[in-house]
């Protein structure tokens, strides 16, 4: 018996509101196709330029959307059958991720050429990954978040192992893949449990459900826990952080930069949206957990960074520490906290891309020279590069008149406003530990040109002082080459880092008006 089927009503899709990710995906597809026709030098450059152009286009599109929804102009709105939310928050992360894509492409160009890996697929993957991140930021549904997460991650797994000839790169890929899929499973299980206890995967529905029901069963809390595990993994919060140093160190450096900026941002986008927005009424349940994660991340990240001898790895640990700071904003669970986290993420993206750009340049051909020694005397060989790197490092340390300072200031002020004094104090003390290893790197670049690094290397405790002996002349190394594209990227990062440090109000406004749709 044939039942009369109701006509299936397709959801209305507001294409214009999805334009940034569509632009990225379209760009990726175009490049993929184009890449099958030509493979030469010019193509490589073209691919880079094309990717930057796509990223800029996506930014412009985001700007249009921002006019519509950001800053309280049109207000947030739901789209695609409530599965997508277009609010200032989403646009903000779109911007962050597009910037990461653009800067990552600039970084990649010189690197790929130097490593003889020139192929458009790198850029394709980057754009796809970015689109996944944007989906995560815009998703109003846990399943959509999961899909975005996977799009982001799967592309990143490939990117991490992109340098096939390097053992480390392959190892990074497999570690990232195994652990990533493991944590995705946790996330998904969290989604399932949440679904089971609230009856929906839609964040708006969940929020509404939680605000009307007071029952908070174990299943729901289990959902919280597993969601937190999955996203905690993505943002590299302790104790889900252990992949980070290995993957950051092993991946091609431009990928590391992109990963640190985009993947972290996307992870936080989902984290903030789920917990602050959807689970907002259950603050009392998750805030203590976030508190612990934040403190662990800051302290463990910083103290492990102290003992590293490899700059890339050190920056990886420092990114763990930064994740802790961004979590402070969530832990504060107030508007200042969210805005602070956003400000932090945007600023951190620039700073970290700039830092890894420097690392990529200094590591030279083979991507091997990432030890502290490689930076010795950089201030003489490449004073501009050394200065830029110094600014990035100081910004990460929270030096005044840099974006990094304001970022820390912002989240800590949120913590103080929320009366979380303890975490504020711990954060500041952890920043002292962190400062040590940034400073140590600066020491190597500036202060010990002729000496052995015996006293500065990780093996010497702070108390012992420096060897001070005259150095054996180190093997002469040719001056590093600075690719033009990377130089542009560094310039942009530098301009932001200093500019937002001096005149932060526009950025602050951007972050403040990137309001999260409170459901």
């Amino acid at each position, binding site marked *: 018996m044939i039942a009369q089927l109701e006509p299936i009503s397709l959801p209305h899709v507001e294409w214009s509101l999805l334009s940034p990710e569509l632009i990225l995906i379209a760009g990726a597809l175009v490049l993929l196709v184009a890449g099958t026709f030509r493979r030469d030098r010019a193509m490589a450059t073209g691919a880079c330029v094309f990717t930057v152009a796509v990223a800029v286009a996506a930014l412009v599109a985001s700007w249009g959307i921002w006019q519509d929804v950001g800053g309280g102009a049109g207000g947030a709105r739901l789209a695609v059958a409530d599965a997508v939310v277009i609010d200032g928050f989403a646009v903000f992360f779109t911007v962050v991720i597009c910037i990461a894509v653009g800067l990552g492409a600039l970084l990649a160009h010189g690197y790929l050429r130097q490593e003889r890996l020139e192929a458009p697929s790198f850029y394709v993957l980057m754009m796809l990954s970015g689109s996944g991140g944007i989906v995560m930021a815009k998703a109003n549904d846990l399943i959509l978040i999961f899909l975005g997460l996977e799009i982001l991650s799967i592309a990143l797994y490939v990117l991490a192992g992109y340098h096939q000839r390097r053992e480390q790169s392959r190892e990074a890929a*497999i*570690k990232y893949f*195994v*652990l990533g899929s*493991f*944590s995705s499973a*946790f996330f998904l299980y969290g989604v399932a449990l949440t679904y089971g206890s609230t009856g929906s995967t839609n964040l708006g529905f969940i929020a509404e459900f939680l605000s009307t029901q007071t029952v*908070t*069963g*174990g299943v729901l*809390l*289990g959902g*919280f*826990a*597993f969601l*937190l*595990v999955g996203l*905690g*993994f993505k943002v590299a919060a302790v*104790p*889900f952080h*252990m*992949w980070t*140093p*290995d993957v950051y160190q092993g991946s091609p450096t431009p990928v590391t930069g992109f990963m640190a900026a985009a993947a972290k941002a996307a992870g936080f986008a989902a984290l903030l949206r789920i917990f602050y927005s959807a689970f907002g009424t259950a603050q009392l*349940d998750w805030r*203590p*957990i976030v508190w612990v994660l934040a403190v662990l991340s800051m302290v*463990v990240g910083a*103290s*492990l*960074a*102290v*003992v590293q001898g490899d700059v890339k790895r050190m920056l990886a640990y420092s990114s763990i520490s930064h994740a802790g700071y961004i979590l402070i904003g969530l832990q504060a669970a107030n508007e200042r906290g969210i805005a602070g986290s956003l400000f932090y993420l945007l600023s951190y993206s620039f700073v970290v891309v700039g830092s890894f750009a420097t690392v990529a340049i200094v590591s030279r051909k083979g991507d091997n020279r990432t030890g502290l020694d490689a930076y010795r005397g950089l201030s003489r060989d490449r004073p501009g590069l050394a200065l830029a790197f110094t600014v990035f490092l100081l910004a990460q340390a929270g030096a005044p008149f840099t974006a990094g300072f304001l970022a820390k200031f912002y989240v800590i002020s949120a913590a103080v406003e929320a009366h979380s004094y303890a975490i504020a104090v711990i954060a500041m003390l952890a920043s002292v*530990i962190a400062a*040590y290893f940034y400073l140590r790197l600066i020491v190597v670049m500036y202060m010990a040109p002729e000496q052995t690094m015996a006293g500065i290397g990780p093996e010497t*405790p*702070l*108390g012992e002082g420096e060897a001070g002996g005259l150095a054996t002349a180190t093997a002469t190394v040719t001056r590093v080459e600075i690719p033009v594209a990377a130089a542009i990227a560094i310039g942009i990062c530098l301009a932001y880092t200093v500019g937002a440090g001096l005149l932060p109000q526009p950025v602050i406004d951007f972050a403040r008006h990137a309001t999260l749709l409170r459901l």
Partner: protein
Amino acid sequence: MMHAVWLIPALPLTGFLILLATGRRMGDPKAGYVATAMMVGAFVVAVGVFFDLMGLHGEERRFQQDLFSWISVGGLDVHVGFLVDPLSVTMALFVTGVGALIHLYSVGYMHGDERYPTFFVYLNLFAFSMLMLVLSDSFLLTFLGWEGVGACSYFLISFWFERPSAATAGKKAFVTNRVGDFGFMLAMFLIFATFGSLNYVPVLEGAHELTHVTATAIALLLFVGAVGKSAQLPLYVWLPDAMEGPTPVSALIHAATMVTAGVFLMVRVNPILNLAPGALTLIATIGALTAFFAATIACAQNDIKKVLAYSTVSQLGYMFLAVGSGAYVAAIFHMVTHAFFKALLFLGAGSVIHGMHDEQDMKYMGALRKWMPITSGTFIVGWLAIAGVPPFSGFWSKDDILLAAFEKNKALWFIGLLTALMTAYYMSRQVFLVFYGGERWKKPEAAEAHGEDVAHDAHGAHGDFKPHESPPTMAFPLVVLAGLAAVGGILKSPLERWLEPVLAHPHEFASSSSTKLGLIVVTTVGALSGIGLAYSIWLRNRVRAETVEPEVLRHAWYVDALYQKIVEAPGRALANFSAFVVDAKVIDGTVNGVGALVRAGGTRLRTVQSGFVRNYALAVAVGAVAILAYAVARSA
């Protein structure tokens, strides 16, 4: 003339500045004459001011000059200003007078020294500071002079700084004085806290409102300052060492002027002292003990200047005995006469040293009266004065003090009397050893005993040389001072009347004239017997020298060694302990320990990051379980 009082310190200051700028170009002896001229000018002004003041009547004899505000903060208002009254003018007169003479003397004495101009730079600066000390109208400005003279004393003691002993002596003087300054400063604080002012006039006029306790505290604290500056027990130790400086310095600073600043200060604050009888008794006791103690040491010293140095300590003790007995005029009187005869003795000693080509050991002198007639003649006048032989000046002033002490306390008087005897003895011993007896510098064993010195002392006191008389620039001051030392006694009663306005309660001797006379006789007999004793020992050689010069006295009762043991050594140990254990190990060790701890923590954590992907997964799982456990616990 009164308004020109500012010139009195300003002239030496000008001299100081001129010499500082151009002294080296002027050189020897022009620089010396410039400095001397400034002092003479100051003296002339002082005389002018003195006569102006004389022209006023008793109580009106006070004039204040205010130059500019120095430190004015809240309730504290200190100006650079002068208080001209009989006391300060008396001080100014003898400081400039004796100072001018000693400046002149130095022109000759320092001739040939490679740092000749520098010497006069210091000397003029000293004169300026000393005059600020005595003329100032506030405690704080006095303190400025007080510290200034201390610094100059330091410069001048270590003038020949190449000699480690000189450098050490200078430092010792400064630091020891600082111990006294500690008291002075606290006294000022207390005065300010009590009166809200540091100016002499309001403080001294309001003194009667003081409670007994406060008065005693202020008096004793100021006395601590005086003990340091005026070399009383237990802080006298720097003064004998100060003889490392050039002899005119010893005469000017360490005999006539600076060391008497403590006495001056005590007299200046007499209205406060009068309210603190306990403090007075203590001052008198310390004074008497110092006088006696120093005199015993002086009996066994061989260095011509050391004898005089201990003698100075002893005489300063007399002055404090007078102060403690309430006989302020007697103290000032003795200060003045002492300035005359002690400056004379020092300059004479300097002349001898000069004539003997830098020999200072009296055991290698003798019979010098033949070679140095002016020096010996004037020295003998000084000797008689200090010994208290009538009618020389010392007799009169010492007599007043002993009389006052007798009225205060018989025991103190007795100590004073014994001291007088000893004073006569050791001064006679000095005169006999230096100017009488045989020419011991010629004896071969003398050269032998001092053999090692000859090597590095090119014109040493040995071999073929003859002692010679000093040049006129040196002789003239000797003669003038000898005259003053001889007849200074006539100042006794004028001084009493003159100083009356500055005293809260003029001291009246209560004793009957017969008692007075008896005391005079006793004192004189004491002095004469001292001389006789010395004569029999040192000229007649009745007793072997060793028996009257026991080791313990030669080494000044081993006080330096004692201080070394109980102050310096523990202090050094404490400083070492603080610097290299407490600071370096404990405090800094903690700081570095924190750093090391973080590092150790990082290193430990590093091992967790094993590189094995399954370990990482385990961490994720453990984290998940932990959060889950928390969630379950919360929902339960």
